[in-house]
């Protein structure tokens, strides 16, 4: 097992290295940030001075080497736009995004898993139909539209929740719902189809035939096995939500990393973009590694061994 974890960690490092190269390349392709940092009418000499100060005059590979050597020591440089350490800015805003993502995912799970399972159990009933429609809506509704709709109805219309910002627990409800809607639909579908597949298995039929009560069959035998792929989905969803929170954060003025990232990209704030991608990629890799380990805990049949040669 330790060998497996070790190998996965090494793989992760490889992934992160690859990500850093790609992001570095992409971000430098977007163009020169100096002109966006200075007023339109700035003189050429001021622009040249700024470029030199920001280290943009060196050849690309020198800039990358400098970036990498500092990054491994945790120094991602100063954000061009904010003139603050990039990591500091990220750690200031990451909690807000994690909060939002956790709330969105939590909400999605609490609603979608029971719904999906019930839909599977009561297949082709009215409940199942309602669930299907819900899933369709959840996946079809644009996040942007849903967010504004929720604000119009629940903030302006009913006045139950604030329209924007991050003041209190109440501020979390609308953004979490908006963010979680798409995941809710996906998770419900997965839960339903996973459950249906398990219910069709021989061992379930056997259990039923052996006279075990339906309740016990459902929860002890079926659900337990259906949970396994669901746990993998949770890991992936977390990663997707982490990235997709951008739109939700913008609509609700939620001070998270997503908004920071979009601003950084439009301002061509190289250090900040690189730092954000590095941090989020690391987070994603770690979470998926953890999920894979939880996988073995859930299903004792699964053991990570070196493939036989």
């Amino acid at each position: 097992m330790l060998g497996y974890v070790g190998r996965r960690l090494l793989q992760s490092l490889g992934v992160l290295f690859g990500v850093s190269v790609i992001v570095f390349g992409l971000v430098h392709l977007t163009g020169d940030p100096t002109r966006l940092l200075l007023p339109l009418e700035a003189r050429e000499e001021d622009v040249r001075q700024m470029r030199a100060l920001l280290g943009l005059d060196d050849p690309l590979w020198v800039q990358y080497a400098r970036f990498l050597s500092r990054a491994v020591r945790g120094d991602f440089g100063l954000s061009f736009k904010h003139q603050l350490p990039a990591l500091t800015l990220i750690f200031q805003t990451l909690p807000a995004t994690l909060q939002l993502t956790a709330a969105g995912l939590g909400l999605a799970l609490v609603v979608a898993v029971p719904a999906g399972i019930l839909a599977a159990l009561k297949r082709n009933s009215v409940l199942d139909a309602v669930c299907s429609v819900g899933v369709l809506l959840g996946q079809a509704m644009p996040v942007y539209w849903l967010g504004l709709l929720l604000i119009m109805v629940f903030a302006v219309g009913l006045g139950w929740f604030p329209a924007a910002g991050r003041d209190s627990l109440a501020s979390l409800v609308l953004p979490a719902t908006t963010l979680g809607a798409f995941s809710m639909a996906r998770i419900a579908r997965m839960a339903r189809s996973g459950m249906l597949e398990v219910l069709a298995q021989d061992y379930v039929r056997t259990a039923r035939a052996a006279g075990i009560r339906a309740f016990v069959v459902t929860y002890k035998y079926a659900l337990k096995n259906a949970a396994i792929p669901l746990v993998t989905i949770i890991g992936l969803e977390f990663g997707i939500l982490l990235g997709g929170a951008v739109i939700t954060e913008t609509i609700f003025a939620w001070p998270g990393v997503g908004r920071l990232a979009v601003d950084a990209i439009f301002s061509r704030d190289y250090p900040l973009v690189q730092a954000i991608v590095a941090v989020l990629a690391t987070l994603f890799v770690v979470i998926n590694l953890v999920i894979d380990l939880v996988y073995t805990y859930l299903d004792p049949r699964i053991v990570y061994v070196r493939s036989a040669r």
Partner: protein
Amino acid sequence: MLRAIRSVAMILAILAATAGVGLAARAQAWAAGERDVTIAQGIDAEFLDVQMTNNIVTMIINGSIYDTLLTRDKQLQIVPHLATSYKLVGEKVWEVKLRQGVKFHNGEPFDAGAVKFSFERINRADFKSPQKGWFGTLERVEIVDPSTVLFHTKVPDPAMPARMTLMYQMAPKYIGQAGDVQANLKPVGTGPFKFVEWQKNERIVVEANDAHWTGKPAVRRATWRPIPELGARIAALQTGQADLIVNVPPDQVPALATSRSVRIEKTPSCRIISFAIAQIKGGPLADKRVRQALNHAVDMQGILDAVLLGNGKRLNSWMPPNVWGHDPSIPFYEYNPKKAKELLAAAGQTNLTLTIQAPNGRWAMDKDIAQAVAGQLSENGIKTNVKVIGEWGAYVRTILDHKTEDIAMSGWCLPSLEPDHWVTPNLKTGEPVSQYSNPEVDKLMEQARAEMNPDKRKQLYSHLLRVIRDEAPYIFGYQQMDIYGVNNRLKWTPRGDESIRLTEIGF
């Protein structure tokens, strides 16, 4: 099965804890007092070190914490502020007398040393300030006594008073001890409000500085919130979460105007929008008659009424009335398709095809106005289409590289409100933003820039603007309307320089 439940339960618990932590602690809703205001703009302040920015939103927020040497009153006239008087004592020397008894928020005194320090800081080679160009004519600051300084300029500079309205005063001892990074995170100024806290992208809170030399502010505490999404910003106004919001688009005005708790306030902005004709490209556009024809072929007022619902005021030349130097007697180009055709025929250009480039979302209804202009030109015999360049960085690139389409939608406003800053960057040969070149006009600009006598200077600008109008380097457009949404419990009217001053808010 227990394992599965335990795992899922653990995951949910972790999620709940992550979500709840910190927020429960903040549940203490900001006890908004009766004399507190919340102002929602579109973005957060970039810096709270005012010398690091040239962004209008950032400067508005910083303007509550820092003071300038001179300032502009509600009518945009230059009046004393931290400097009580200024006068020319030599062709290139200004004597400035400073207000006595003023202290920075940390207790250190404001004096001539602070003025010298503030100027030299911007010009430090390692200080990344976008304001260097604003004071490019100032060579050095000489201290005469603690309340008198001399400004030595490199050339005769009649714009020095305008520049002094942008000279924010920094605290030398504080910055010397705390450093530049701290000066940005915990700003210290002489302003009517003191810094309380800054949560990035969330809020900036300032509280009244009752010891300020202008007196006790009516507002006790102000919160600046960035709400980028327009729908959410308007909703925040309607729910009372924000008391004042900016950049309400014209089409939202009717809805808010009927509300009982909020109202719309608007004012013609210093920001002007026009369509720059790339005369430097040569060809048909180098012919003045063609450019004049384009102006006659567009019914600008009609477009403003239809697209902006009247929220725009036509320009008679390249300067709004908000800027000193503007001449209201210069005639507008009248909508006259017949005259346009005649001019084109005289120039031998009866089969013209043009492209207009426009951004998307940079200014209110920008793309739509460009399309309306293109539509009208096409109706009047000049086949025109629109190229939308959505990303602002790329749009700016075309302008700075002088590789724009035939016509480029352009906007302009500088907080100095100094006439030379309107004409030179946009129309002088070789300037970064200029798509026009005319040595005669260059000479007129240089003359007006250097004239020290205000009356003579005004005449020179009148003449220059008339020539510009005649030369038609633009399809002259309009002055934007700054449209604000205000809660009715506030007594406030907007300014013509895009600024919001907390000291101008009452109840």
